[in-house]
C-alpha cells in the first residue's frame, strides 16, 4: 500500500520544494500565451481564431464526448479544461501548418499505412475536411448536424469514424484522407490539450494534472526520488508559475 511520508521528512521536503518553485517570467524561446495573473478564458466567451462557427460547434460537441465532464463521473472533462481553445491555438502553430513536415509531391496514396501518412494535407486541412465530411455523414444518417444529436448517437458517429466505417471517399474525399485518420488526430489533439501545460491554452488550472497526480513543471525531485511507494504530496505548478 502507498504510505504517507512521516511529518518531519514531509516538512523538510516541503520547505525545500517551495524554495525551488519557478520564476514566473520567461525570456525568449517559449511564447507566452497566458501568464499566472492573466486568468484562463472562459470557453463560452472564446472566439475561435481558426475554426468557423459551424466547425466550432462540432469541435465542442465532439470534445465533450471524447473526454466528458463531471456529470459523467469524477474528474474534469475536455470542455472544463478548455481543450477546444487548445486545438484552435494549435491550428495556428507550426504543427497546424505542418511547417516541419515534408510536404512535397508526388503524393502516393496507395502505400502501406505502416509507412506513415502520405496525403497532401496539413492538420488545418484535415480538420476542415474531416469536420465537413462528418457533418455530411450525420445529415445522411440522421438528417441532423453532429452537435444536434443526443450523446449516444454522437458516440456512435465517433465510433464509426474511429473504425473507419464512414466512407470519406463517398463523401467527396479525393486524396484518401480516411475517417480513422481524422478521428486519430482529433483524439490525440484532445488528449494533448487535456494533459499539456496550460501555456498552450488547455488544461485549465491544471485540472487534469491534479486529477492524476502529475506535478507539472516542478521538475525537481532530488528530495523525493528516494521516497518509494509514497504518494507525492504537492500539487502541480505550470510553466508560468501557476500553482494548483
Amino acid at each position, binding site marked *: 500500500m502507498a504510505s504517507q511520508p512521516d511529518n518531519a521528512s514531509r516538512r523538510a521536503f516541503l520547505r525545500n520544494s517551495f524554495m525551488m518553485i519557478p520564476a514566473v517570467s520567461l525570456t525568449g524561446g517559449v511564447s507566452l500565451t497566458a501568464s499566472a495573473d492573466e486568468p484562463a478564458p472562459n470557453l463560452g466567451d472564446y472566439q475561435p481564431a481558426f475554426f468557423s462557427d459551424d466547425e466550432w460547434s462540432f469541435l465542442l460537441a465532439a470534445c465533450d464526448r471524447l473526454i466528458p465532464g463531471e456529470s459523467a463521473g*469524477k474528474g474534469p472533462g475536455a470542455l472544463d479544461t478548455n481543450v477546444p481553445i487548445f486545438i484552435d491555438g494549435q491550428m495556428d502553430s507550426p504543427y497546424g501548418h505542418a511547417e516541419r513536415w515534408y510536404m512535397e509531391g508526388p503524393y502516393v496514396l496507395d502505400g502501406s499505412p505502416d509507412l506513415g501518412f502520405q496525403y497532401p494535407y496539413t492538420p488545418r486541412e484535415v480538420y476542415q475536411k474531416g469536420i465537413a465530411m462528418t457533418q455530411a455523414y450525420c445529415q445522411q444518417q440522421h438528417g441532423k448536424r453532429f452537435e444536434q444529436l443526443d450523446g449516444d448517437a454522437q458516440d456512435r458517429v465517433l465510433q464509426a469514424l474511429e473504425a473507419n466505417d464512414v466512407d470519406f471517399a463517398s463523401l467527396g474525399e479525393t486524396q484518401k484522407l480516411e475517417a480513422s485518420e481524422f478521428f486519430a488526430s482529433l483524439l490525440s489533439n484532445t488528449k494533448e490539450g487535456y494533459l499539456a501545460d496550460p501555456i498552450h491554452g488547455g488544461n485549465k488550472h491544471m485540472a487534469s494534472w491534479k486529477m*492524476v497526480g502529475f506535478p507539472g513543471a516542478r521538475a525537481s525531485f532530488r528530495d523525493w526520488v528516494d521516497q518509494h511507494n509514497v504518494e507525492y504530496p504537492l500539487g502541480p505548478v505550470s510553466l508560468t508559475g501557476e500553482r494548483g
Partner: protein
Amino acid sequence: MAKQQPRVDAVIVGLGWTGSIMGMELTDAGLNVLALERGEDRTNEDFAYPKPADELQYGIRHTMMQKPKQSAVTIRRNLDERALPQRKLGAFLPGDGVGGAGAHWTGVLIRPTPTDLQLKTFADQAFGKGVLQDDMQIQDFGVSWDELEPHFSFFEKVCGQSGTTGNLNGQIQAGGDPFEGPRSEPYPLPALQDTQNTQMFEKAAKQLGYHPFPNPSANVSRAWTNPYGMQLGPCNYCGFCSRYGCLNYSKASPQTCILNALKQRSNFDYRTNANVTRVELAADGKTATGVTYVDGNGEEVFQPADMVILASYALNNVRLMLNSGIGQPYDPVARTGTVGRNYSYQIGGGINCYFDDIEFNPFATAGATGKMFNDFSPGNFDSAAHGFIGGAKMHSSQASGTPIKTPLPKDAPSWGQGYKDALQKYYGHHMKLSMTGSVMSYRSNMLDLDPTWKDPYGMPLLRMTFDWKQNEHRLSAFMRDRLREIADVLKPDYRDESFNLEGSHFKVTSYVSTHNVGGAVMGTDPSTSAVNRYLQSWDVHNVFVPGGNAFPQNFQANPTDLIAALTYWSAKKIREDYLKNPGPLMSRS
C-alpha cells in the same frame, strides 16, 4: 558560381557529439577547425528552467529534432516495395541544431561487450552451419576491445558516467555487470538513485538468478568536473530528460561537456544554419577539396578544407557520401559496393505492468533511471539452441512520467468516461519490463538515394530499406518468454505486452529508437566496408566518417559510448599518423 570562404585545415559537418569530439581533438592538434551545423545555435540559456519542462513542445512536437521538411528519409521494407517519404517524424528522432541528438538524448551510456566487437568471429565459433539466415552479412568491427578501452574510459569521464563497476581489470565487482568487458578504471561516479520500479525489477531478476545492475548513466549522480574543465551539477531527477534539453547542467551533452571549452579556442569556429549538401572532390576523385553548403539566406557557399569530417549522424553521413560520390554505392543484387551496405537498427519490446496499490511516481526520475542485466548478451547464453544470434539488454527503465505519453492498458477505453477513469486509475501505477535487442545486418537492409523525392536544395533524399528478419523475430520471442517470467514474479494486477514477433514488419509511425546504425561501416576489407578501421574513407583519404554508420551490425544496447570511443580512436590516428603523412592509413590490398 558559389560564394567561397577562406580555406580551413579541417571542416566538420554537424556539431553534435561526434563533431564536438573531433573539434576538440583536431584543435588540440593545432589545426584550424570550422564546424558547419545545419540547425540553430543552442546554448544552455535555451534550456533554462522552466523552458524544457514542456511535454507538448519537446516530447510531442519534436521541436529539437530533424525537420523532415529539410531532410526526410524515404522508407520501404523490402527491395520490391515502393519507398515513401517519412513526412513527419516517427520511428526515429535525429537531432537538429548545435548539440545534435546529444542535446536531447536520454543518456544511457553503456559499452558494448568485447564479443560484440567481434561478432563474426564469435558466430563462426559458436554456430553450426545453417543455423543462421544465409542473407546475414555480419562482420567484425576491425578494432579490438583493448584498442578502444582507453577511449571508452575517457569519454565516460567527459560525461561523468554514473554507475556501478562490474569488472575492474578482470576482477568482478559486486553490484556491477559481471559480463562487462574489463574496465581500466571504475565508473567516474556512483549510480543514480533507485526508484520503485528499479527495486522491484532488481529483486525479481535476482530471484531468477540474473545479475542486475544500474543503467550506466550520463545524467550525473554527483557534481562533476570533466577533463575539459566543464562542470556538471547533480541530476535533480526532473522527469524531462529523454527528448528534452537538460534544465540543470546535469545531462552530459555536447553543450555541457565540450562546447563551452571548445568555443574558447581561437583555432575553432562554427557556423549555424549551414546545411552541407555535398563534399567536393578533386578531379581525380581521390581527395576532397572542401564542402558546399547552403547558408541561412539560401546562398550556396563553397568552404575549402584540407580535411572533411562527416559528423552529421549515421543516416546523414551515408547520404552525404552518396550525394558526393564518395565510395561505390552498394548494390544488393550484385552484392557489390559498400556505401549504404549493412544498415541496421535496434529491436525493442516489453511488458507493461500495472499495480493498483503501488505508487511509482514516474515523474521523479532521471532519463537513464533503470536497472538492467546482461545475462542475455552474446556469449552469455546458448542462443544457437534457439536459432538466433545476438542478444538483448533486459531492463526496467523509467525515462519520464509525462502524462500525454503515459501508457494505459490495451483494453482500457481510449476515449469517453472509461478513458478518464483509466487515466485516474493507472497514471503512476505502471512500470515496464523491456528488452532492447541487437539487430544483425542483411543483404537487403540498406541505404541508397531515393529516385523520386528531393530536399529543398535539390538533393535526393536518403532511401532506407529495412525490415525485421526471422533472426530478430526469434530473439524477440525468446526474450519475451524471459520477461514474462519476471512479470510472473512481480504479479501485476494487469499486464499487456508488445513484441515484434514472426510476421511483424517495421512500422515508421511509432517510436522505436534513434539508434540507426550502419550504412558506411568500418572494417579491414574494402570490399565489405566503406571506411577503414580508422573511419577513413577507403576511396577519398581526407574524408573521415565518425558515427553509428560505422557499426557493421547493431549490438543490444545504446550506441553513443561506442560512437564516441570510435571517434576518439579515429582522432588519435589522425593526430599521430595522418597529419604527418596525409594519405590512406590502410592499403586496399
